[in-house]
């Protein structure tokens, strides 16, 4: 398989960073789906993971910390022909952007959200993230993180997300297939992806993940919501990876009275006769 349409750029990530494998998985997924760079819009906020759009040959919107989702959702609303992918970190998605995370699940635009989850803040050099384990010692959490980690996928299912998955960069074959299915899913899809931070997280290392994750059983039924909730609550010793929950829901475009005719918003126009009618209503 090649990644050549989506080119390799010089990156600013540390050698051994889990982001490399994620980036190449993403490029492979896009290639295999036959996407062209100009059809793809990569959106991110701020963070090490949020540099991903810089390293891939596609349209890119590198916005503000925590604010990738609102920009991505609106870009999709504006032009449904774009394949819109948010590729950004756990701090960006669940910390600074927590409110947008919840509400974009409700909105259900057809966008894909890949969370590079290394359970630590990398760009700011090693503070606790919303998904950091309790007890982890950092330069700010000096006596160990006293706060419980967030369970983002439990929140996603509870908030009504229609596609919820977890991946691990150490299982590239599975990861590429999850990414492809998430991109193809018609609606908001979230994939939380474990990717070790080699510089700042000495607890959740590559081997830690390797020893703690397991692939969902072949006969796992991803349409069973209660089962999925049980699965995403298995966090301690054995963490399932794969597509945890999948359900077809009405998308924003299907629900919105302006967009349901499938004409992209950017190609619509208000007729002068309509505006003149509005003016007359005030007379």
């Amino acid at each position, binding site marked *: 398989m090649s990644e050549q349409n989506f080119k390799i750029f010089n990156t600013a990530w540390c050698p051994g960073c889990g982001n490399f494998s994620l980036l190449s998985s993403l490029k492979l997924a896009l290639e295999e789906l036959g996407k062209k760079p100009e059809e793809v819009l990569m959106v991110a906020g701020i963070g090490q993971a949020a540099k991903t759009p810089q390293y891939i040959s596609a*349209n890119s919107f590198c*916005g503000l910390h925590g604010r990738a989702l609102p*920009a991505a959702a609106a870009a999709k609303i504006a032009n449904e022909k774009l394949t819109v992918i948010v590729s950004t970190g756990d701090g960006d998605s669940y910390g600074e952007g927590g*409110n947008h995370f919840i509400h974009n699940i409700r909105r259900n635009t057809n966008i894909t959200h890949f969370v590079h989850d290394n359970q630590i803040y990398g760009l700011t050099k090693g503070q606790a993230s919303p998904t950091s384990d309790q007890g982890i010692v950092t330069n700010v959490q000096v006596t160990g993180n006293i706060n419980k980690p967030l369970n983002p996928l439990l929140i996603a299912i509870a908030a009504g997300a229609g596609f919820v998955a977890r991946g691990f960069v150490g299982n590239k074959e599975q990861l590429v297939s999850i990414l492809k299915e998430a991109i193809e899913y018609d609606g908001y899809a979230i994939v939380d992806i474990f990717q070790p931070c080699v510089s700042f997280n000495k607890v959740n290392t590559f081997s830690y993940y390797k020893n703690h994750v397991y692939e969902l059983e072949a006969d796992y039924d991803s349409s069973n919501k209660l089962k999925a909730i049980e699965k995403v609550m298995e966090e301690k010793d054995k963490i399932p990876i794969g597509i945890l929950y999948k359900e077809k829901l009405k998308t924003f475009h299907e629900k919105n009275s302006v967009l349901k005719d499938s004409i992209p*918003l950017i190609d619509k126009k208000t007729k002068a006769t*309509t505006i003149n009618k509005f003016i007359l209503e*005030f007379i």
Partner: protein
Amino acid sequence: MYNFLVGGAAGQGIETIVAIIEKLLKRSGSFVFTSRDFMSRVRGGHNFSVIRFGENKILSHANKLNGIIALNEETIKLHINDLQPDGFIICDSKIEIDEPRIIKLDLDVMAKEIGNPRVSGTIATGAALKLFGKEIEEAEKVLKEVLDEKYIDINLVAIQKGYNCVEKKYKTTSGKFKDWMLITGSEALALGAISAGLRFYSAYPMSPSTSIMIYLAKKGEEAGIVVEQAEDEIAAINMALGASYAGAVAMTGTSGGGFSLMVEALGLSGIAEIPVVIVDVQRPGPATGLPTRTEQSDLKFVISASQGEFPRMVIALRNHEDSFYQTARAFNIAERYQIPVILLSDQYLGDASSTVEPYNLEKIKSVNPIKKSTTEGDYLRYKITDDGISPRLIPGKSKNLVAADSDEHDEQGHITESSEVRIKMVDKRMRKLKKLKAELQEPEFIGAESFKTLLLGWGSTYGAITEAVEILNKKQGNKYAALVFGDIYPLPIKDLLTKVKIADRVINIEQNATGQLAGLIREQTGIVCDLNILKYDGRQITAEEIVEKLENGVKK
């Protein structure tokens, strides 16, 4: 010209009564200007609207009243001092205040007889219109426009019953405004946005800006505009930027508190050069302030909001013409310069309705962000150009890839920390101001060329200042003039410099406590205003107040 107040508690249907009255007055040919004064509550309290009407143009509200419809006792107590000696008050006969000008009618009893106690206000409406010498033959038509179908018949009976209760008191000659519009400032703004090609509006409800979203939501489906209620103001502006980047003409709207949340993204629009129009319908702050009242205290905030430096434009809306035409212009400027354009309105202008000449679509240009890509292959989104404006393409509309970046970036849009590129990019962005400054609109000059005193103002005080200048020039013989700013940042200074040079004294009038325009003028030109008339009680200044202050001496 008559001035007429309708007051009562929240929940008594004042808005409906006022809508019926304004429409009937305008249909009779009168020019109508209605200001609205609300308390921040859904039930109870004291709310009122002041309807001014006559055969000539009216630019603002006034305090002296010819008539009052009092739906409760409090309305009488609060406003009787403003009632002219020959004025009238209509109220229910149960109210125990006695005064020769009070006309007591059995409003509640009649309403019950008609079959719904809630139509007592409509009965009072019929009576008031008769006292003003008006006819009510258009009543049925107007009621159909304002009310749900099931309430039309009963209200028609009520308005006729009230009309028959009293005799004509005033003689009203009609004006020529029957075929003009009657519209609020916020509706005019929304209509201006639609006319300019708006495709996407995202906002979080906040008084007094919500009426913009309400109008757009009502028209969205027919106009092909997506109106999305965001989870917060941060989402609202980031959604507007995402939509605009992708090619949809976008706007967001809020008041000062919401604007505070939007500040970081304002800078994103600046550095990523994404066009956006942001409306700030001002109310008194700080923090929650006076949520339903008016002020002009966000000027210095919006012209300097956000870290870093980038070009922006701020346009203050002065009246119901500006609200339409300047809004449409804002979209064109945002698009051409790829900058954020901020529209400053306020509660007074946004909620006030005025008669206005039907808007002419031929006077405005609609925006189309989608241009043909001519530079396939070596496209540079942030190309260094002489005027600072780089070629903007829409992602997905050509093979060229389009980048937007909140980091400093090179011509392609890739992150850079190069000192050389940084300087070039800052200079490129700031160069846009040079061209923008050349197309600024000078403030409107009002009054006599022979002036001695020059008044300065901006935005919604336009009406009161204009009227004050007319009154003073009549009384004192053409000694007054005013400059009222619409374009306010960058500050147009050409006319300011020439007029200040020949003025004996310069007096600044603003709805804030610190004289923000005076401060901006001093910063930009070195001109120091001699005096300030500042009002910050949340209520809009009137021409009478300005005249009174100028005649009795303004404190330094």
